[in-house]
């Protein structure tokens, strides 16, 4: 069936609803291709108008009006609106609760006591991200209290890669290595034949591996990284000449 142009469509409806026979004849002369369409619409409108039900109430006289006792039931749509509103309020409340109660920032435990005074990184320094124990708390909280979400592509910094302060006086090299292991979470294995002199060290904002390399240069051993977070300390073996 051919699509009726909008202006012809409008004109046909106007003529059909006016029931003007002269106008219909004129239209059919000008647009003979739409004659049957116009006749169809005129018949439909005529039929529709004539189909008006008689205004005859089931009772011959108008019944006396008595206000009904029961109030009209609320439309079901109102129920939906109320349910949606309640959901929105709950969602907004949850959002507010989460926004006002951020999860506590994850902390790295640091040993304290005696002459040893290792300390963790200041919260305001460094850009390293802490890998939290709780995966749901995978955000750090800067001093301003605002949460920062790391970009998904940012490398996760492991605990042993953090920088620490470490000050030790009059301690054996082995104890210092153990302290470094405890503080930095580096797993340190010491090969046999390791010297154990009494030493003093003071490091500021150094990683465990940096401390080991520095100590190795001074006290004659080599820290070999075996795996992630695991280091083997190998004493330097003096090569015999020839």
């Amino acid at each position: 069936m051919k699509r009726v142009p909008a202006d012809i469509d409008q004109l046909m409806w106007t003529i059909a609803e006016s029931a003007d026979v002269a106008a219909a004849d004129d239209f059919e002369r000008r647009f003979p291709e739409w004659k049957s369409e116009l006749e169809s619409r005129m018949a439909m409108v005529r039929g529709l108008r004539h189909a008006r039900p008689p205004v005859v109430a089931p009772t011959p006289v108008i019944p006396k009006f008595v206000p009904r006792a029961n109030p009209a039931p609320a439309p079901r749509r109102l129920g939906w609106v109320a349910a949606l509103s309640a959901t929105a309020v709950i969602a907004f409340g949850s959002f507010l609760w989460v926004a006002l109660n951020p999860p506590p920032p994850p902390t790295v435990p640091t040993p304290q006591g005696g002459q040893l005074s290792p300390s963790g990184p200041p919260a305001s320094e460094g850009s390293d991200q802490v890998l939290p124990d709780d995966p749901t708390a995978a955000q750090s909280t800067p001093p301003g209290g605002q949460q920062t979400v790391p970009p998904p592509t940012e490398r996760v910094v492991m605990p042993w890669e953090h920088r620490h302060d470490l000050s030790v006086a009059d301690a054996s090299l082995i104890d210092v290595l153990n302290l470094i292991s405890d503080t930095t979470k580096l797993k340190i294995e010491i090969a046999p034949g390791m010297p154990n002199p009494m030493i003093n060290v003071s490091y500021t904002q150094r990683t465990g591996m940096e401390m080991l390399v520095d100590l190795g240069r001074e006290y004659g051993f080599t820290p070999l990284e075996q795996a992630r977070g695991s280091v083997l300390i190998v004493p330097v073996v003096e090569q015999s000449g020839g």
Partner: protein
Amino acid sequence: MVSLLFDKSKATFDEDGILVDRFLVGDATAFEQLYGKYYDKVFAISRGILLDADEAADAVQEIFTLVYRHLPRFDRRSKFSTWLFRISVNRSIQQARRVKYKSRLVDLDAADHAAAPIEEDTSDPRIEGVMAEMAPADRALLTLFYWEELSLQEIADSLGCNVNAAKTRLYRARERFRLLYEREGV
């Protein structure tokens, strides 16, 4: 002459307005007059939307009960009749939806044996069949325009929209009617 015409045009509004005022100060007969005056019109609108005389008679009582209760809130920004027709349309559409839901629960045998209201046969049997297939909101538009012969402005006021929206909605309802009507005719 002009002032006479003006006064005459205001007379209808004033008559309803006076009845409303009388009801609001406690004159119960004033409401009965409004009820008697508009019963047929409200019944016709409701009958057109509900397609059932008994349902329509029931709806009319509901509608006038609503009017009775909410008349103190009638703000007179529109004519009383416009406000009444809007309530009539909304309430009838609402009831039509409920009736449609209930009718699904009635089996065909029961429907066949139900006492149908005795009414005059209309000219084209397809019309009522097509009307019954249409959504109550579409039926309301066609009823107001073709059966109650309200103007587009009056329809817009009754539906709570502007004239252009009423025109668009009427056009769409008419197109949907035509599609169903032509399908019935095949």
